[in-house]
């Protein structure tokens, strides 16, 4: 019953998407808006079908309806309720179903945001987005069908992968990541609509930027949560392994960030049009590539779903998208001729150009490194690995350069800069950097790379904070406002700028934390008997004894470790799941603002008297997760809607149209 209903909903969704895509693109290309109402209805229909299918699947999971293939695959009566709901996205078919729902939500949101605009561009954009929806609905209906009825109906299932049941972060990391990934379809739709329509209006930049920043925020949060999960759950003390699937999520983030910057140059100088649009298309392509990499089974990754048939289908879609994108960009080349130019090397535009080059360079490096084992196997038949050492070596210089630009960019003005003025303005930030450097040296810290990172961090923070505070100071002096009012007002008058600099500060936190936690980590491993202590860094942990427990889906044994001096008890443990022959450890982490003490239980003795542990002290690692509120705050500030009328997606004839147009984006 659930199977049939679920499958029916998917087919209905596929029908809505196909109808909407065909009508939207056909009428949009022909320049008519007659079909727009129907396209909007198709969008609503697609959304309803997808969400209903997802809810139905959650219902099937919760009611343990093992007649549905997906539930038989990942469901289990002994899994706690939370993780049963989470198992919706824990395996391949369910994750694509989830993808469809989020896609439907985004397209509907876009349709609602532009509900007052009646133009062929909205028609085209919705049509393109629904075309992507067609692909995913087709996948769900065909190769990745979770609804196949099972016969005979099993009594119980194996439950989701034990690793996915270990931590609450598993509940939020995938949805965040999906909201980021899937959301990139909207800028894709806007950009292709603009190109297909044949005219690039003034306003598409604004919409493009806003509708990229929203998924960018989710993607950033999703990636950071993913690394927090790896850190808190996997027990090896790391948070980023340059795993192919991790890289896959990182690639569109890089190009989206590059786009957010290059669009600023485009706005002011009317140049870099081709480049900016290419970045948008590349971001979407990379999300599809990333989805492919996770699900195709050709990559060896912690995240890989099991091998399935959807690989070739995905690859065909990617090939089609590539052909379409290149054809579209070359056919509309005449639209993309720059109208302005970048005049001076010492200007913000140039800084952003270099920033873009670096981001694309890192993107290329990560993509090349991830794909290279496939290349050598195809060409030479030899299997090699490209792992952490390679990626760390290649990305550190780029990362430092980007950090430097995060400071220099905001310090430089648009257009030609006066060298003397810039020199004077850089004095305080350079002094800050020097102070930071001296302080670090005084504390006994050594090592060129981390010290350079800290010094640059000080430099960048000083510049960005100054850019945030100086306008407020002006307001205080001119309008005699109080500090917070002044800050608030200056922020609300220049939201993108303020939000952007806040995000820069968040990024500085992350980069400094990465440098500290990688360079100054202390590691010990050892075996301790009950009553004796293990020394790691400045901490000593004493083994008090062992605990054990059982939950419906797992049994566990923990070592009670007392932190000598503070009396705090940490309990690193090993979990035993039925499905897995290796126990899965849960580390015990004590977080302080200055660093983490991280204990991982490796082995217990038979006689119950000793334990073997790995212990680390990671300085500053918590700053990485604590940057999330800063990034989100910055993005919210940048995205917060202005009360003034905004521009429509369609290009309006004449300059007057931009401010007094009655076509508005009502988001």
């Amino acid at each position: 019953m659930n199977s049939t209903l679920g499958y029916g909903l998917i087919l209905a969704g596929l029908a809505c998407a196909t109808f909407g895509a065909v009508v939207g693109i056909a009428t949009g290309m022909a320049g008519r808006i007659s079909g727009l109402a129907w396209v909007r209805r198709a969008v609503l229909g697609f959304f309803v079908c997808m969400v209903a299918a997802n809810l139905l699947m959650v219902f099937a999971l919760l009611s343990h309806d093992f007649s549905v293939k997906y539930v038989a695959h990942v469901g289990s009566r002994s899994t706690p309720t939370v993780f049963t709901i989470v198992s919706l996205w824990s395996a391949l078919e369910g994750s694509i179903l989830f993808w469809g729902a989020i896609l439907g939500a985004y397209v509907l949101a876009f349709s609602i945001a532009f509900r007052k605009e009646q133009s062929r561009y909205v028609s085209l954009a919705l049509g393109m987005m629904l075309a992507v929806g067609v692909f995913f609905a087709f996948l769900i209906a065909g190769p990745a069908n979770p609804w196949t009825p099972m016969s005979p109906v099993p009594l119980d299932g194996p439950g989701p992968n034990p690793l996915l049941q270990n931590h609450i972060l598993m509940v939020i990391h995938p949805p965040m990541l999906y909201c980021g990934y899937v959301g990139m379809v909207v800028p894709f739709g806007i950009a292709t609509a603009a190109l297909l329509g044949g005219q690039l209006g003034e306003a598409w930049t604004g919409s493009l930027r806003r509708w990229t920043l929203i998924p960018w925020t989710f993607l950033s949060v999703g990636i950071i949560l993913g690394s927090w999960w790896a850190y808190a759950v996997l027990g090896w003390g790391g948070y980023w392994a340059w795993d192919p699937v991790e890289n896959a999520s990182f690639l569109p983030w890089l190009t989206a960030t590059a786009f957010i910057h290059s669009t600023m140059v485009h706005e002011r100088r009317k140049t870099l049009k081709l480049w900016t649009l290419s970045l948008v298309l590349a971001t979407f392509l990379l999300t599809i590539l990333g989805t492919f990499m996770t699900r195709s089974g050709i990559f060896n990754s912690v995240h890989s779903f099991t091998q399935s048939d959807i690989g070739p289908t995905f690859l065909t879609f990617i090939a089609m998208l590539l052909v379409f994108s290149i054809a579209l960009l070359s056919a509309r080349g005449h639209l993309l001729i720059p109208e302005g130019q970048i005049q001076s090397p010492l200007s913000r535009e140039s800084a952003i150009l270099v920033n873009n080059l670096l981001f694309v360079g890192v993107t290329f490096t990560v993509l090349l490194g991830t794909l290279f084992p496939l290349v050598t196997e195809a060409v030479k038949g030899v299997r090699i690995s490209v792992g952490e050492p390679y990626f760390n070596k290649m990305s550190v210089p780029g990362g430092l350069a980007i950090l430097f630009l995060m400071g220099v960019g905001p310090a430089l003005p648009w257009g030609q800069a006066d060298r003397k003025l810039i020199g004077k303005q850089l004095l305080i930030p350079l002094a800050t950097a020097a102070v930071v450097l001296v302080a670090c040296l005084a504390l006994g810290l050594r090592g060129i790379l981390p010290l350079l990172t800290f010094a640059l961090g000080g430099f960048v923070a000083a510049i960005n904070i100054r850019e945030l505070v100086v306008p407020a100071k002006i307001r205080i002096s001119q309008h005699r406002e109080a500090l917070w009012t002044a800050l608030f007002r200056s922020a609300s008058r220049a939201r993108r700028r303020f939000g952007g600099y806040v995000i820069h500060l968040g990024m500085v936190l992350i980069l400094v934390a990465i440098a500290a936690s990688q360079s100054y980590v202390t590691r010990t491993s050892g075996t301790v008997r009950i009553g004796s202590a293990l020394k790691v860094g400045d901490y000593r942990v004493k083994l008090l004894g062992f605990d054990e427990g059982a939950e419906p889906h797992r049994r566990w044994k923990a070592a009670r470790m007392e932190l000598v001096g503070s009396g705090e008890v940490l309990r690193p443990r090993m979990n035993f799941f039925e499905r897995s022959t290796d126990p899965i450890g849960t580390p015990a982490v004590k977080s302080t603002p200055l660093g983490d003490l991280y204990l991982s239980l490796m082995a217990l003795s038979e006689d119950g008297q000793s334990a073997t542990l790995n212990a680390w002290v990671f300085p500053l690692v918590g700053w990485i997760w604590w940057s999330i509120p800063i990034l989100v705050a910055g993005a919210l500030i940048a995205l917060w809607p202005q009360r003034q009328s905004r521009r429509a997606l369609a290009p309006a004839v004449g300059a007057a149209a931009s401010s007094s147009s009655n076509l508005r984006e009502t988001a």
Partner: protein
Amino acid sequence: MGSVLPLAILLSTALGDFAPQQAGSEPLEPALEARVQKLGKQLRCAVCQGLSISDSPASMARAQLDKVRSMVAEGKSDEEIRAYFVERYGEWVLLQPEAHGINWLVWLGPVALLLIGFVVIARQIQKKPAAAPEANAEQQSKRPAHAQGDDDEYLARVRAELER
């Protein structure tokens, strides 16, 4: 270097058995142990998805690291240790590709891209330099006449930005 009495957890149940988590060999003295960990970071665990033997909690990784430790204790060089593993598991066991033949692509490709990119940017910016001074002059004249003091010019700039 003696080997620690294997510490293992014994948990055979009717339904599932668990691989005993055995402790590895004793760490060597700090200088040598640092070398062991460094080499460990370069070698891939044979049963994991891309982790190094230093990072992986898997028992196979522990066995591989023990081998590295015993070879370091015997006085073998880094190259010999790496060669030992390559002999058994192939180049795949090295976490960064050796620089020979086609592997140069992965090391030099990004560098080449950056260089080409810089050249393209430089040419973009240097195009039509004659137009630049004119545009500059226009911009200068548009600025309000707070010519005295750098602070004022900066503030004027900030005000201009605020007005955006």
